[in-house]
C-alpha cells in the first residue's frame, strides 16, 4: 500500500500529509484520554465528596411556588385569582429544642403540637410548617430573637374564588400544593401553573443553615392567565334558574348549559349540587362533578331531532305528510311501544314532533332504516366526546350498529338505548340552530402570558356539515311549534321572541329491575332563540324530579325560558316586531 501511494504522487508531501493527519489523531486521542481521566477523578477519586453533596442538595432543594394565572370570564371579571399568602417554614437543623418551638407556634396556627414537634426533629434543612397562613395570624409568630434561623416566611400564594360557587364545577379547584385538581384548574394546569423556582439551603458564616433564594433563572415564573367564553352574568342566570329548580322539584341533580350555537362558545355551564371551591374539601366528592360533561342520561324525546333531521334530509318524509299513529301503540320486533298517554290518530309529521308522538316518530324511523339513523346519530356527535377543553368528559353511549337488536332502530329513534351528556345534546341542537354545522364546543377563548402576550387564541371550529341548511331551517320551523299551543313546551314561550326547542321526558332505566322505571325520569328541554336567527342555545336537564311533575315541558322548560329570556335582554337581542313573521322554507 505504501509503495502504491508513493508512486501515485510526490513521496515527500504524501508522507508529510500523513504525518499531519496522525498529529490530529493524536491530539484528539489525548483529549479523549483527558475526558476519561477527569471521569476517573469525578467518579472514583472524588466520588464520596460529590455524591454526598449531590444527595444533600437533592434533599435540600426547596421548590418555590409560582404565582398561578388568573381565570377571567369573557368580560374580564375574575373567577379565580391568586392572592399572596406567606407560608411558614422551619429549619430543624437549627432548632435546638423542637418541643419549645412547637409549643410556641402550634396553638397560634391551630396545629397539633406533637406533629409540629415531630417535623422539627432531626437535622433536615427545610420543612414546611404551615402553608398559606392568613395575614392576621402572621404577626403572632415570632421569627426573630431565639427563633431566628429556626422559623421563616416564604412567599406563597393562595387560590381564591371571588364568585364562590359560581361555575365551580367548570373552574375546579387547587390542592394545598397549589396544583389544579379538578376542572379548568386541572385541564390548563400547564398554562396556569407557572414554573416553580428553586432555592437551596446552605450553611452561612455562623454555621447555620439559611435558605438562599436566587434571582433570575431559578426564581419562580408566573403562570398564564386564561380567558373563558363563560359570561359571568349569563352564568349567574343559569345558576339562579337551577337553584329554583332544586327548590321546587328537588331532583337528585340538575345541569344547565348556555351556548352560542354559531360558534360553539359555552356562555354558561352550571350544575347542582354545587360547591364552594374556596372550601372544596368540606363538600362530598359528588358535588365537585361537572355533570354537564361527565354525567350520562337517556335523552328521550330530545333525541327525536336526530331522527327528524335524518328523515327530512334523506327525503323519507315531509313536514306536511300524514302519519297514522293508530291507537298510540306499535309492535316493533315483538315489543309494544306506547306514545305518551297513548295519543294516536292521524298527525302531520310536524305535529308528530310538536306533540312528541313516539309511534309517529318510530314509523318514520322505520322508513329511514337503522343504518341511516345510526349514521346521522354519529354525525350529530353522539357516542363520541365533543373534545371540549374540560376534564372528565364522558363519550356517551351509542352502540355500534352491528350490536343493534331488531328493536334498536325504534328505541334509538325516541332516545332510548343511548346515553348522552347534556353538552353532547346541546351541541347536536346547535347544528339545527346554525344551519347544519357541527361546531366544536369550547370554553377557553384565550391564554395570555403573565407579560400580557397572547399564548393561544381560539377561533370557532366548524368540524363538519351534518345536515343541509335547508333541512336545518325546516326542522327549526317545526321546533318552533313545540312551544306554541298544542306543543309539549308552551312554558318555554318567550314573549317577543320566537323560541325553537324540544322536550325530553325519559324514564330512567333501573338496572336492578332490568326495566324502565315508572316513577323516575330524566326531564329536559333543549332549544334556541330567536328561531330565525339564533343567538343563544340552552339545555336544562333534571335527574329525577320529585313532587309529581316530571314532564320536561313542565319542569325544565320554565328554567330554559328564565335563563334565555334574561340572556336575550342582557345581550340586547332585538325583539320581534308583532307584524313580522318567519319565512317558512319548505
Amino acid at each position, binding site marked *: 500500500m505504501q509503495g502504491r501511494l508513493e508512486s501515485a504522487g510526490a513521496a515527500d508531501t504524501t508522507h508529510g500529509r500523513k504525518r499531519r493527519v496522525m498529529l*490530529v489523531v493524536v491530539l484528539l486521542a489525548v483529549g479523549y484520554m483527558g475526558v*476519561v481521566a477527569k471521569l476517573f477523578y*469525578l467518579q472514583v477519586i472524588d466520588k464520596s465528596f460529590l455524591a454526598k453533596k449531590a444527595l444533600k442538595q437533592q434533599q435540600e*432543594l426547596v421548590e418555590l411556588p409560582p404565582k398561578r394565572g388568573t381565570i377571567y370570564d369573557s368580560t374580564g371579571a375574575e373567577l379565580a385569582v391568586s392572592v399572596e399568602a406567606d407560608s411558614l417554614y422551619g429549619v430543624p437543623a437549627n432548632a435546638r429544642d423542637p418541643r419549645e418551638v412547637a409549643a410556641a407556634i402550634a396553638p397560634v396556627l391551630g396545629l397539633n403540637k406533637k406533629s409540629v414537634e415531630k417535623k422539627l426533629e432531626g437535622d433536615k434543612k427545610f420543612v414546611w410548617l404551615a402553608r398559606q397562613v392568613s395575614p392576621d395570624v402572621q404577626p403572632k409568630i415570632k421569627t426573630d430573637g431565639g427563633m431566628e434561623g429556626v422559623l421563616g416566611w416564604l412567599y406563597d400564594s393562595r387560590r381564591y374564588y371571588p364568585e364562590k360557587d359560581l361555575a365551580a364545577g367548570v373552574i375546579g379547584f387547587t390542592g394545598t400544593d397549589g396544583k389544579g385538581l379538578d376542572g379548568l384548574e386541572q385541564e390548563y394546569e400547564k398554562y396556569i401553573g407557572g414554573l416553580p423556582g428553586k432555592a437551596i439551603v446552605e450553611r452561612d458564616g455562623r454555621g447555620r443553615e439559611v435558605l438562599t433564594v436566587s434571582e433570575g433563572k431559578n426564581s419562580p415564573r408566573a403562570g398564564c392567565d386564561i380567558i373563558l367564553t363563560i359570561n359571568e352574568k349569563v352564568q349567574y342566570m343559569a345558576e339562579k334558574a337551577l337553584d329554583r329548580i332544586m327548590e321546587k322539584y328537588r331532583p337528585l341533580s340538575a345541569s344547565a348549559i348556555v351556548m352560542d350555537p354559531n360558534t360553539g362558545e359555552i356562555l354558561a355551564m352550571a350544575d347542582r349540587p354545587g360547591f364552594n371551591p374556596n372550601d372544596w374539601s368540606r363538600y362530598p366528592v359528588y358535588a365537585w362533578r361537572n355533570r354537564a360533561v361527565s354525567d350520562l342520561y337517556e335523552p328521550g324525546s330530545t333525541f327525536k331531532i336526530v331522527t327528524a333531521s335524518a328523515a327530512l334530509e334523506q327525503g323519507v318524509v315531509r313536514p306536511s305528510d300524514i302519519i297514522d299513529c293508530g291507537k298510540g301503540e306499535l309492535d316493533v320486533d315483538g315489543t309494544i311501544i306506547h306514545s305518551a298517554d297513548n295519543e294516536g290518530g292521524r298527525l302531520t309529521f310536524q305535529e308528530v314532533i310538536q306533540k312528541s308522538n313516539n309511534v309517529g316518530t318510530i314509523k318514520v324511523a322505520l322508513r329511514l332504516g337503522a343504518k341511516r339513523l345510526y349514521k346521522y346519530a354519529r354525525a350529530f356527535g353522539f357516542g363520541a366526546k365533543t373534545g371540549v377543553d374540560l376534564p372528565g368528559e364522558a363519550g356517551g353511549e351509542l352502540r355500534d350498529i352491528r350490536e343493534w337488536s331488531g328493536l334498536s332502530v325504534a328505541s334509538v329513534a325516541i332516545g332510548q338505548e343511548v346515553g348522552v351528556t347534556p353538552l353532547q345534546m346541546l351541541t347536536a341542537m346547535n347544528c339545527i340552530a346554525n344551519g347544519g354545522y357541527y361546531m366544536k364546543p369550547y370554553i377557553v377563548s384565550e391564554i395570555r402570558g403573565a407579560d400580557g402576550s397572547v399564548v393561544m387564541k381560539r377561533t370557532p371550529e366548524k368540524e363538519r356539515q351534518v345536515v343541509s341548511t335547508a333541512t336545518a331551517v325546516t326542522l327549526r320551523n317545526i321546533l318552533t311549534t313545540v312551544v306554541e299551543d298544542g306543543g309539549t313546551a308552551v312554558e318555554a314561550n318567550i314573549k317577543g321572541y320566537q323560541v325553537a326547542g324540544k322536550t325530553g321526558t325519559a324514564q330512567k332505566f333501573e338496572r336492578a329491575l332490568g326495566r324502565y322505571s315508572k316513577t323516575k325520569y330524566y326531564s329536559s328541554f333543549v332549544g334556541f332563540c330567536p328561531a330565525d336567527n339564533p343567538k343563544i342555545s340552552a339545555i336544562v336537564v333534571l335527574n329525577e324530579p320529585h313532587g309529581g311533575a316530571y314532564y320536561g315541558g313542565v319542569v325544565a322548560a320554565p328554567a330554559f325560558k328564565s335563563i334565555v329570556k334574561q340572556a336575550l335582554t342582557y345581550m340586547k337581542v332585538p325583539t320581534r316586531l308583532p307584524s313580522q313573521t318567519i319565512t317558512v322554507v319548505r
Partner: protein
Amino acid sequence: MKLKQIREDSIIFFITLILLSFGLVMVYSASSVMALRYHNDSAYYLKRQIVWAGAGMAAMLAAWRMDYKIFRKLSLPALLLCFILLIITLVGPEVNGARRWIRLAGFSFQASEFTKPALFTFVAASLAKRADKLDDFWHGIGPYLFICGTLVLLIALEPDFGTAAAICAVVFMMLFAGGAKLSHLGALVLGSIPVIYLQLFKVGYRRSRLHTFMNPWNDPLGAGFQTIQSFLAFGGGGLTGVGLGQSRQKLLFLPEPHNDFIFSVIGEEFGFIGATAVVILFLFFMLFGMRLALKCKDPFGRLLVFALTLMIGLQALINMGVATGIFPNKGMPLPFISAGGSSVFVALLSVGIMLSVSRGNRLQDSAGAAA
C-alpha cells in the same frame, strides 16, 4: 487488504448504530420527566428524536449507495442553499435570545448543522483540485478564508459561537492536513488571536462562563451552577452508576439533561464504566474514520472523510469535555446521542458519506487489481 477495508466501514457502521440506539434510550431517560411536565407527554422528545433518527438513517443508507464523486458536484449548490438558509435563520423569530432555528411544518431545524457537511465537501473538493496552488497564501488559502469566513460569520451572528468555532477548527485542520504551508497556517493563528480574545472576553456571558470554568465553586447557584450540577451527577453515579432511569440530577438540577448535558446523565446512570465506554466508542469511531481517510488514494475522498470524522470526533470531545469541566461551558450536542433533530440527522448523513467514500475506494481498488 480487502478484508481490512470491510472491517473499517462495518466497524464505523456498527459504532454508529450502537451510539444511536443508546442515544434514543438516553434521550427518553433524560427527558421523560421534563417532557411530561412541559408537554404532557413523556415521550415528546423521544418521538421527535425517532423521526429524525429514522430520516437520518434513510439519508445515511442513500448516501452510502451513491458514488461519492457526486458529492463533489453537489457541494457548491448545497453550500449556496445553506447560505440562503442561514440568512433566513437570521431574519427568523428569536428563541431564548438567539436565532438558530428555521421552523417548517411543525419541525424546526438548524441551518448551521447542514452547513457543516456542505462546507467540508466543498473545501475538500477544491483543495484536492487546487493542491498545487496552496503555496501562495492569497491564492491558496485566501479563497477558503473568504468562503468559510462568510458562513461562520452568519452562524456567529445567530449567535452560535460554538458551532462557528468548531467549523473554523475543522477547516483549519483540513488546510493543515491538505498540505498548506505551516508559515501560512501560523500567520492565520496569529491573525485570529485578537478575534478570539474579543469573542472570549468582551462578550459578557462568555466571559462569565470562562471565569466560572476557572472556578465553578465560587458561584454554585449562579454561573457555576451547570458545571457543578454536572460534577454532582458524575459523582453520584460513581463507578457503576445508579441504574437506567434512576438519575436524580436530571430531574431539576441539570440544565438541558437530554441535550448539552446528556453525558452527565449517562455518567450518573451508568457510572464511570458506562461513561468511559461511550468515550471509547467515540475514540474508535475517530481512529477508524481517520484510518479510512488515510487509505484513500483520491485526495478529495481523503480530505472529506478526514473532515467528517474530525467534525464528529471534535464535537463529541467538546460535549464530553464541557460536561466533565475540562472545557468552558459551551452548548454543543453529543453526536448520535443528544436530543436534537438536525444534529442527529447531519451526523448520520456524514457517516453515510464516509461509508460511500469507503465503498468507492474499494471499488477502485478491485478495479485496479483486475487491471
